[in-house]
């Protein structure tokens, strides 16, 4: 399978452990990730907060580059990026005048590459193919599958899973032999891009998520977004200090679990670079 790949800024910055995990995992599954040459930032919260036109134009530029490259599908493993790309695509498909204006602004015409989040990419490979590749089943490891905000919201834009009770990640981890726990915070917000600008917000929101996962017996939280990982993993020590408690809750990318199950070593997946250490 020949898949387009839009890493986004986080995966080429301090979340490059996520890219390491993706490349190792997809490599083991025989899927090549073809990085989109000259991709630019999607604009993220900054663009949609301060400049609405730019928040459509930046994703539109990337969509145009992707269609020029002939990508039928393109993985965007950050849920902010994938949502922004899908949103620009959706708005332009409904509004020809906007599509024409954007083609002028970004000097190219976007034309039909399908943007996929990480879960959709594993679904494209197929649960049966993943199951067949499992060498070391996860032995009933109890995990909380955490979707956060933008994998399932807004539903009219992302058109993915159930926006209140998603189950797609649970099906994947179950195929690996893990045991997804039932819990209450799978689509609550972690504080997203407020990590630096409003730390208190992130500590409060992420604390509730980790506490609920622990209360429901999870031994790890699984994520499919770099911002979720930063807030739950990198900020976990600050959360524990702020709320005088101890969780030691490992935060794994979904590709970490798939990678482990197909026989890769944690170090190959970059799991030794997480903040909260993995329990043996």
């Amino acid at each position, binding site marked *: 399978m020949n898949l387009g790949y839009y890493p986004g800024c986080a995966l080429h910055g301090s979340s490059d452990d996520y890219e390491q995990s993706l490349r190792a995992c997809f490599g083991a599954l025989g899927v090549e990730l073809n990085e989109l040459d000259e991709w*630019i930032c999607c604009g993220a919260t900054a663009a949609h907060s301060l400049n609405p*036109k730019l928040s459509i134009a930046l994703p539109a530029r990337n969509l145009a580059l992707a269609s020029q490259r002939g990508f039928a599908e393109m993985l965007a493993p950050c849920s902010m990026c994938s949502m922004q790309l899908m949103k620009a695509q959706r708005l332009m498909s409904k509004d020809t005048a906007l599509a024409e204006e954007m083609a002028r602004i970004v000097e190219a015409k976007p034309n039909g590459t399908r943007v996929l989040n990480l879960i959709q990419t594993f679904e494209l490979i197929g649960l049966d193919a993943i199951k067949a590749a499992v060498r070391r089943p996860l032995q009933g490891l109890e995990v909380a599958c955490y979707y956060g*905000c933008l994998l399932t919201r807004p539903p009219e834009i992302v058109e993915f899973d159930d926006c209140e009770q998603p189950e797609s990640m649970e099906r994947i981890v179950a195929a690996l032999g893990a045991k997804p726990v039932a819990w209450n915070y799978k689509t609550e917000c972690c*504080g997203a891009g407020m990590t630096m600008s409003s730390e208190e917000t992130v500590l409060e929101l992420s604390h509730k998520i980790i506490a609920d996962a622990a209360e429901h017996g999870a031994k790890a939280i699984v994520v499919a977004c770099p911002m979720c990982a930063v807030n739950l993993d990198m900020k976990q020590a600050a959360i524990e200090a702020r709320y005088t408690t101890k969780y030691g809750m490992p935060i794994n990318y979904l590709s970490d679990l798939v990678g482990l199950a197909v026989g890769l070593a944690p170090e190959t997946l970059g799991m030794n670079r997480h903040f909260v250490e993995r329990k043996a």
Partner: protein
Amino acid sequence: MSELPVNLTVQDSLVEVLESIARTRFCDCYQCGKCTAGCPRASAMDVAPNRLIRMLQLGDVEPALRSQAIWQCVSCETCTTRCPKSVDCAAIMDALRCEAYRLGMTSEKQAPVMLFQKAFLDNIRRNGRLDEIELIAQFKISGFAATRSPRFLMKDASLGLKLQARKKLHLRGEKVRDRGVVHRIFARCQNGSA
């Protein structure tokens, strides 16, 4: 007190501007409060999301623009997802932020959030991609200039070492080769609504 940047007539046209940015109609809201019920930040807001929309319905734009609530919003899209009338509440928050920023009406208490977004966009305009170190430096400098708080300046000082220990610190950020096209996209998007 400084002179207000908007008067009543301007407020009327501002309602139209906000509706067009948000691509939604304020009058569709029937004030059920579901947006506020699901909002993870409502308890920290000076004005709840449904009340912000009520202000806009009544043409009371200025207090909405000056609220700190719009900078507390984490853009989680829960309000938009659950609205029974398909009012795009998260897009209304965006529209209010855009206009508050454009008109220089940002709540002072919430300045760091706005300054972070501004530093983020400046950074992308220069490089095409985010340079984290440059972003943090610019955010800290502009935030310190606004708050004069040494605590603000030093708060994340140990972060670099923690990132370095995990080989997550990249002293030189990436740049796209064709930065000209990025500059042109930004320039073309400055004209018009924001």
